[in-house]
């Protein structure tokens, strides 16, 4: 009887609220950063090799698709960085009431966008 009991729906029906969305994106960005840093390291390896490899490095660098991915990667870095700082504050129990949580979330978004744009278009 007991084992026949159905499990009530969870992930599919719970509203995608800011709190959980920011949390899961922190994980996603963390995972993609660790994979991305290996790829970036490989890309840098190209000019540590022979000069003849350098033009491969340049071809890749000029590729628009590659640059787009690099841009996303920049956003990922800054999101993970700023949201990580948010988590550091929470570890001290600071800024954990709901209003501060929402405020800091929007701050993270704002700072992420601002720094990504700074890095790519103004530096």
């Amino acid at each position, binding site marked *: *009887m*007991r084992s*026949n*009991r*159905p*499990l*009530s*729906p*969870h*992930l*599919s*029906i*719970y*509203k995608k*609220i800011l*709190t*959980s969305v920011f*949390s*899961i994106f922190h994980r996603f960005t963390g995972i993609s950063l660790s994979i991305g840093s290996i790829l970036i390291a490989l890309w840098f390896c190209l000019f540590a090799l022979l000069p003849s490899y350098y033009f491969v490095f340049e071809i890749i660098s000029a590729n628009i698709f590659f640059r787009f991915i690099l841009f996303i990667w920049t956003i990922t870095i800054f999101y993970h960085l700023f949201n990580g700082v948010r*988590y550091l504050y*929470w*570890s*001290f*129990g600071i800024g*954990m*009431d*709901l209003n501060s*949580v929402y405020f800091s979330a929007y701050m993270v978004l704002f700072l992420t966008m601002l720094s990504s744009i700074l890095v790519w278009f103004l530096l």
Partner: protein
Amino acid sequence: MAEFTLPKNSIVKEGIYHKNYKNLENIKKLIIYRWDPENNENPRLDTYEIDQKKCGPMVLDALMKIKNEIDPTITFRRSCREGVCGSCAMNIDGINTLACLKPIGEVKGDIKIYPLPHMPIIKDLVPDLSKAYNQLESIKPWLKRKKYLENNESNKLEEKKQSPKDREKLDGQWECVLCFCCTTSCPSYWWNSDEYLGPAVLLQAARWVNDSRDSERKNRLKDINDSMKLYRCHSIMNCTHSCPKGLNPAKAIADLKKAIVTEL
């Protein structure tokens, strides 16, 4: 490993549409999760149409109206109808809350009502909370004093007083009505409910840890200092978001973690 999809017997099917033929103007549609243990069918979503003008302001009033006037088989827990008992906890419009505190007017469009997420269902909107209650028991939610013999003789009959300042430390913790809205809103609890205690129980743990009259503070902290029991909390903050009483379990858990680091 977390299972993100529902088991086969839990997949929700379309149900019965209870149409309201009398009134077509002030109609509000309620889409409600139903499961009957007496037949072997999957859960289903039934739709009910109610006349909003002839119904009380809260979602619980709508449920009572349906039970009284349309379908007496619909099953849900309720008692105080004013947010004190914590019985009518359910998932309304995608967020866990108490039906008696959720105004119908706050929901735009149809009101979808599910039982508390990721719980075994007894019937319709009634989840089996026994696992959560056992977890609550495991943190020993009662006042513990060192044995009388270890203390002064005078301690034996004297009341243990608490200063208003010490009493203030319990504010935001004693108010919990144990509706388990927070616990069942926590994705981490969905995937680790066998071992992770969940926000509601950890909030209660904090309530007894912070009680100045309790002499077992250190032991209580030691008991919950466990990678599964406590540290499955990743500060997702869904608990604080969903609490119908406006409490902050996430903060209480963060303070517990801090106390463990600084005091043990």
